[in-house]
């Protein structure tokens, strides 16, 4: 099979080596060229680092930021301050503190300090900005970019103001830029493949589902924002040590548009995309600029000056890519995930890991087996319409409680209240004796509450295995352990083979089972399942019943089961609670409930009775 997302040692190596090789080739071309070509290639490599920095945040979070070049500006000025010769510093930046002027650092240490400064700045700026909504972040980061420009352009005594700085030591060579670019690739991939990186990608794929498995969206975005800021700072620092001059507009609108174009054209979701986008666009840009200045084509036809040609050309390339290849040149994949590379045998996916027996049920085992999930007096109205009316519920670990009732009875709303997605108007919810009202869904997941949704809400672009592993990572498990837990749960559901594919490619029923596996991977003590059997046929339902029957003992967790299919509810549940119109109308054994005339009337329908009798 091809197109698999199952990362193996071999495909990971390909994903790492291919971009490094591209950087090495680019550097070699530059190092052996004319001094002007050397300069061009060095500038391209510095820019590449900034594009990788952008990728770390934008690609993994799926949220656009237009402020990252502000961190490049910060890094560039810090690096310039630390290396300016004293005589020039006195002239250009009289307001700088002495310890900075006297630092006279080398290129390596000044770059490292620039990275630390930009990274810290990104954390400080990100603390408020990352709290804003997914739609507000692009705008608020853009505002940050403008603020940075205004500060450096007007703080004359320190930054040299709008005229900028000159005579900064030009120490960045093709080789050093290439080494830093390689390091940036390694760092970006290590982050993307870390548990934290996966958690952030999960928020990109589906924010609601990510919260349900304990992922703090703001926290993960902040981590990537900081790392991205540091990488952009490195790019800025190296660039200023290449050109030797710096002004407030060096990394402003123009650079923001160019680097964003590079990322989008290459494919924002992968580091590989960032690398090929940066190199390809820079190359095209250089060629167009050559024509712009009136070069001759193939030595035969000479073209006059064509101002603005490069900008127009880049715009057209961006437009064409967004229409024809929405995922960018890389399709958003790392090199090792490319189908043709896998076909060549360079990146053959290995068989999925064997389920490790050790991982089974471990998360639940170390918790005391007492307490319960309780709700009392829950009432809730939407726009005057009463959805829940004084509802009580108790779920013990180790039991399976059925929750049935007509469509619109309030079952899903009750699950939303229990899992923290919806605050009730009145009533209490407690988890193992501790008040749970007001706790976020992510926090409740950490406290042992797992849930699934009526629609499967998979993380479509992650493999099935990664979908489930992220559940364990949401709880803080490392990558290796999370993958072992995921393989174990998927093995029990007979889904391991399918789990090699991206979740989007799986049939609807399998996506639903994936959701159950993902909720189990957090090691919950209470699992709330919202119609887990919808979209499964009879045989698959029977398989699901057999699996769910073992969940309380194998995973040490109780199940609240919303389901319309009585052939699932009846054999699994020890108790069944019936909701109708926001009220509990009956709690009892499956047999008692099935025989209750009120339940038959409002929910099961008379044809059900006829079928049971037959």
């Amino acid at each position: 099979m091809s197109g698999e997302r199952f990362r193996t040692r071999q495909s990971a190596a390909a994903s790492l080596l291919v971009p490094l090789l591209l950087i090495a080739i680019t550097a070699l071309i530059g190092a052996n060229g004319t001094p002007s070509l050397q300069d061009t290639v060095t500038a391209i490599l510095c820019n590449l680092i900034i594009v990788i920095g952008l990728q770390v945040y934008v690609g993994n979070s799926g949220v656009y930021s237009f402020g990252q070049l502000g961190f490049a500006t910060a890094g560039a000025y810090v690096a310039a301050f630390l290396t300016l010769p004293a005589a020039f510093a006195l002239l250009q930046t009289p307001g700088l503190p002495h310890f900075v002027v006297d630092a006279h650092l080398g290129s390596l240490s000044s770059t490292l300090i620039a990275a630390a400064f930009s990274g810290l700045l990104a954390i400080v700026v990100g603390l408020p900005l990352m709290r804003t909504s997914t739609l507000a972040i692009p705008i608020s980061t853009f505002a940050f970019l403008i603020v940075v420009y205004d500060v450096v352009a007007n703080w004359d005594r320190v930054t040299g103001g709008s005229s900028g700085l000159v005579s900064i030591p030009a120490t960045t060579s093709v080789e050093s830029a290439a080494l830093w670019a390689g390091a940036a690739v390694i760092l970006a991939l290590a982050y993307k493949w870390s548990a934290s990186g996966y958690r952030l990608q999960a928020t990109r794929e589906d924010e609601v589902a990510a919260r349900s498995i304990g992922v703090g969206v703001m926290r993960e975005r902040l981590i990537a924002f900081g790392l991205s800021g540091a990488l952009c700072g490195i790019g800025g620092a190296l660039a200023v040590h290449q050109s030797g001059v710096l002004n407030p507009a060096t990394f402003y609108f123009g650079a923001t548009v160019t680097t964003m174009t590079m990322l989008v054209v290459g494919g924002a979701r992968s580091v590989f995309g960032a690398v090929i986008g940066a190199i390809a666009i820079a190359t095209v840009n250089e060629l167009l600029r050559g024509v712009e200045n009136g070069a001759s084509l193939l030595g035969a036809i000479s073209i006059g000056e064509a101002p603005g040609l490069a900008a127009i050309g880049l715009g057209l390339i961006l437009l064409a890519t967004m229409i024809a290849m929405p995922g960018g040149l890389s399709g958003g994949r790392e090199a090792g995930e490319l189908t043709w590379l896998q076909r060549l045998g360079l990146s053959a996916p290995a068989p999925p890991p064997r389920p490790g027996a050790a991982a089974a049920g471990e998360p639940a085992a170390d918790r005391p087996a007492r307490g319960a999930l309780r709700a009392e007096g829950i009432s809730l109205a939407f726009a005057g319409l009463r959805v829940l009316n004084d509802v009580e519920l108790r779920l013990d670990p180790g039991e399976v409680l059925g929750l049935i009732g007509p469509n619109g009875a309030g079952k899903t709303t009750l699950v939303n209240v229990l899992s923290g997605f919806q605050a009730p108007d009145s009533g209490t919810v407690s988890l193992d004796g501790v008040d749970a009202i007001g706790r976020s869904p992510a926090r409740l997941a950490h406290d042992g509450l797992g849930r699934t949704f009526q629609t499967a809400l998979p993380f479509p672009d992650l493999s099935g295995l990664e979908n489930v592993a992220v559940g364990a990572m949401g709880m803080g498990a490392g990558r290796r352990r999370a993958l072992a837990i995921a393989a174990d749960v998927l093995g029990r559901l007979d889904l391991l083979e399918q789990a090699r594919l991206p979740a989007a490619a799986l049939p609807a029923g399998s996506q639903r089972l994936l959701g159950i596996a993902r909720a189990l991977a957090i090691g919950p003590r209470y699992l709330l399942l919202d119609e887990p059997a919808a979209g499964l046929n009879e045989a698959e339902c029977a398989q699901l019943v057999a699996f769910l029957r073992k969940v309380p003992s194998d995973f040490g967790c109780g199940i609240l089961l919303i389901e319309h299919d009585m052939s699932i509810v009846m054999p699994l549940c020890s108790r069944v609670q019936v909701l109708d119109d926001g009220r509990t109308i009956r709690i009892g054994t499956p047999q008692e409930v099935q025989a209750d005339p009120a339940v038959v009337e409002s929910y099961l329908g008379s044809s059900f009775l006829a079928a049971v009798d037959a």
Partner: protein
Amino acid sequence: MLELRDVRVSYGGIEVVHGVDLSVGRGEVVGMIGPNGAGKSSILRSICGLLRPSSGRVAFEDRVLTGMAPEQIARLGLALVPEGRHIFKTLTVAENLRLGARQETGAGERTERTLTRFPILRERAGQRADRLSGGEQQQLAIARALLGRPKLLVLDEPSLGLAPKMIDVIYELLGELREEGVTMLLVEQNAARTIDFCDRCLVLSTGRVRAEGSRGELQRDHDVLRAYLGGQP
């Protein structure tokens, strides 16, 4: 009326439907059943233009649909009631229906007739669609599709997520439509109910048609059903 010839569907290089033939005649009710991943939804999606088959031919009343946009196909008279209903949630019931009727002459009269058939929708006409219960939403989705005066009604799991009693209501309604001669293509999980309801059924598994036959034929052919569906139909 609807004709599929050797239709193949692939996702990212992986073929999931391996050459399926299917035909639906005027006034016929045809069902597709089969386990998860059999390719039922992929086939429906390629009929409605939501997915482009990698090869093969889809024709509706002798017009080739392959390569047409979903909205063009809908205008030809092929209406999909999608899985999960996909109603316009923040609009009212009446607005949903108005969108289904488009801007044609006689739309008002047809809306009136539809509301008579779905009395619950008349009752809820001014409410936001997402305030309806699941069964009511399903009725709205079917009503919206009918208002476009489709020649062929394509239903993807109309009973999904519905209470047992509500499934009976929906099937009663589909039964009435069948009596009126509406042509239907139906995908369902519940094999017994589907075989019972449809004139003819296709049993699919792993992207191939494994059996095909009328109600009587399939009910006699228990071995085939058990082999591909696994349950006891």
